[in-house]
Every structure is written in C-alpha cells, then in structure tokens.
C-alpha cells in the first residue's frame, strides 16, 4: 500500500471517527514529536558542520544512524485529514499537503534518501559529513518552503 493511499484511508477513518477531537488529535502531537527527534539528531551534525562543536566521528555516526531510522517511521497514521493549519490550531501543516499528497510523499522520500546518504558519510570525516548534511538540510527545506506555515 502506497504512502499516499495509507494516509488517505486512515485520514478518512479518523475524520469519521473523531470529527470533534481534531483539535487534540494525538497524531498531531506525535508527528511534532517525530520532528523533534529528527532535529535532536540532525542538530548534532549541524553543530559539527558549523564548527560550534568539534567533529566526532562516533557521535556523528550515532546521530546519523538515529536520523536514518526515525525518518523511516511509518507515516500512515500521522497525517489525518482535518489536521491542517486552516482546520485546527497548534499546527503549521498547510492544507496544501492534503491537496498534493503525492508530492508530499515524494519529498518525504527524498528526505529518506538523503538520510541514507548521510548515514553512509557521517563517520567519514567532517567534509564528507558536511556535504551529506547539506543535502539533508535541502530535503527538509524543500518541504518547509511549500508545506509549512509561518510560526505563530
């Protein structure tokens, strides 16, 4: 079952089952938690890439391994319909996500590809890590540019 299909099916189910609960939808908190986990690991390598802390191959590799795995967390129950920024408070997920699920899934796939490359390069020295880190940052940005609302 495709990413998009899964999201669509579960979105419909959630919308029917919990129309009034959208505001406190646990899916929103969980997906925000997942992004915190992304950043928790991404940030270690970012700090090294920017020279805020010294490069440490082992620490970078651990962070990259984590990021590889957390970006593979199944997304199917995290994006129910009606949890966009126009429908509820407390999210920056634009409605455009649900209008363009194929593209959204493709961009998430690009992030997964980038974190795989980062996992392969993180322990190979600062420069190798920086290049792969930059590609990962680009994958984050590609989605944020289109699908994330300004902070409130």
């Amino acid at each position, binding site marked *: 079952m495709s990413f998009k299909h899964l999201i669509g099916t579960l979105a419909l189910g959630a919308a029917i089952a919990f129309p009034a609960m959208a505001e406190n939808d646990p899916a929103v908190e969980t997906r925000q938690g997942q992004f915190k986990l992304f950043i928790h690991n991404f*940030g270690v390598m*970012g700090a090294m890439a920017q020279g805020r802390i010294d490069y440490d191959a082992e620490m970078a590799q651990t962070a990259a391994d984590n990021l590889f795995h957390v970006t593979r967390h199944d997304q199917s129950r995290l994006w129910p319909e009606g949890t966009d920024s126009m429908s509820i408070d407390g999210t920056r997920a634009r409605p455009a996500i649900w209008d363009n699920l194929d593209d959204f899934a493709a961009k998430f796939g690009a992030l997964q590809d980038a974190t795989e490359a980062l996992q392969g390069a993180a322990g190979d020295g600062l420069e190798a890590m920086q290049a792969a880190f930059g590609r990962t940052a680009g994958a984050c940005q590609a989605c944020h540019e289109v699908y994330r609302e300004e902070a409130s």
Partner: protein
Amino acid sequence: MHRFLLGFAALGIIAAGTAWALSAPRPLDEAQITDLQGDPQAGRTIFLAAGCSSCHRAPARDSDPLILSGGRSFASDFGTFHAPNISTHPDHGIGNWSQAEFINAVMRGISPQGAHYYPAFPYTSYIRAEPQDIADLYAYMMTLPSDATPSLPHDLDFPFTIRRTLGLWKTLFLRDDWAVTGPLTPQEERGRYLAEALAHCGECHTPRNLLGGLTRAEWHRGAPNPSGTGRIPAIAGPGFDWTEFDVSAYLSSGLTPEFDVVGGTMADVVGNLRQLDKADLDAIAAYILRAAREGD
C-alpha cells in the same frame, strides 16, 4: 451665506490643489544619476542583497531565480499585488528602460510614465541605497534573460486603486533616514546599509500602522504575516536571543540555532544572501544585533 459658500469652495480648491501638489512624483535630481557608469559584476551583489528575484521570479518554487518573469502574488490588507515582469523583454519587461528611469523606479517608486508604484515594491528601503549601486544593478539586470510573460494587474480594493493617492502616502511614510542611528562600528554601518537599504529586513519584520507605514518604534519586533497565517518573527527585543554567529550562520545555511530548517518566504531570502561574501553576512549579523539592542 453666499460668501460662506464661496469661501468653502475656495478652501476645497486649495485643499485639492495641495493634495495634488503633495501627491506629485518627486524623481531624483537628473545630474545625480545620468552620468553613472554601471558595473554588472558589482551589480550582481546588489541584486542578491536586494532580493529582487524573491518577488520577481516565476511562482513555482523551483523557478529560475534569474528569469524575472513576475507572477508571484502577495496578499495584503489592501488587496493582492502581483509582482510584474522585470526581465529584459522590451514590451513585457524593462528592456527598454533607461538607467535614469530604472533608478527612479527603484529608489523613488516612480514608473517611466511618471506613475507611483505601490510600496509592496520596497523602494521605501531602496531610497537609502547609493545611486551608483543601483546603476550597477541596472547594468547587471540588463544582462539577464528576456521573458515574454505579461504582467498581471494588481487586484486591489478602492480607494487603493487610485495611484495618485500614493503620492500622499509617500509624503507621510517615504523617508530616507536610517532606522538605527547613533554610533556604529564600520562593520555595523556596512550591515545597516545591506539590511536597511538593500535586503529590506524591516519591511517584513517590523509591524505596520493602519495605512501600511512601518512603526519604527517597534523596529524588527515581529509582525503579522501579511500574506497568510502566522507571524514574521521578532529579530529584536526581549525574546530574541540569537548571537551574531547564529544570524550569520542562519543567513548562509538556513539553519536556526536549534537546527530547524528555513521555510516559507525566508527561504528565498537565504537563497540569495547565502551567495554573498561571509564578511557581508557577518556585517548584517552585527547590524541585526545592534538593532536588537535598540530601545532596551
């Protein structure tokens, strides 16, 4: 009674005449701009710092930043603005413009036909630029590709549709002095020039009054997003705790100190500024920190 009416009519004519005079376009002094020789290489830096392509490239996220076909839309309290084609196309762009026409457009908001531009176009910042830099910008932009996309008309509410009223708006809000004053280091001065005259940070990060003028007392203190939900964040004031390193790193990488990744309209800004020299980004950062301390 008859005399009263006459007097009233006379007052009305004087008021209308004054409004007409106040709303007249006021271009730069010819002698100041006609003899300038533009350097396209230097103009590229101005182009990047001033962020021209952020608004004037095609709407698609991945459009070519050097093809200034226009078409991006900007919702506001006054209606929706559509950025025009400013490519070198002779009919649909600015390919036929003289250097003087270009400089008056950028630095005074006046079209070659003598009409006022809306301040969605930040000539309100560019007015502080050095005319030589804008001559360089002209030279550079004349090297960019031509594109035949017709510009879209703005979609505004009455009375904002009457361009002449913008002359009065300019009388009230178009000013060429710096927002951040007082003793500055040379680096802060360079940063102020880049930020206040070119990059126009304050146009989004400073709140506006009901007429759309910037509230200088709250410089960089954050503002509602004019084109959607959410807010343009404060880059000054008590809640802003970034260091110069943080600001410079953000402008070159798009990464916040917490390693969140830039998105939204700021992604375009970073896309341009990251191509500047690091010394210039450090200068902007020094200025931002200097501005952040204003009013403390």
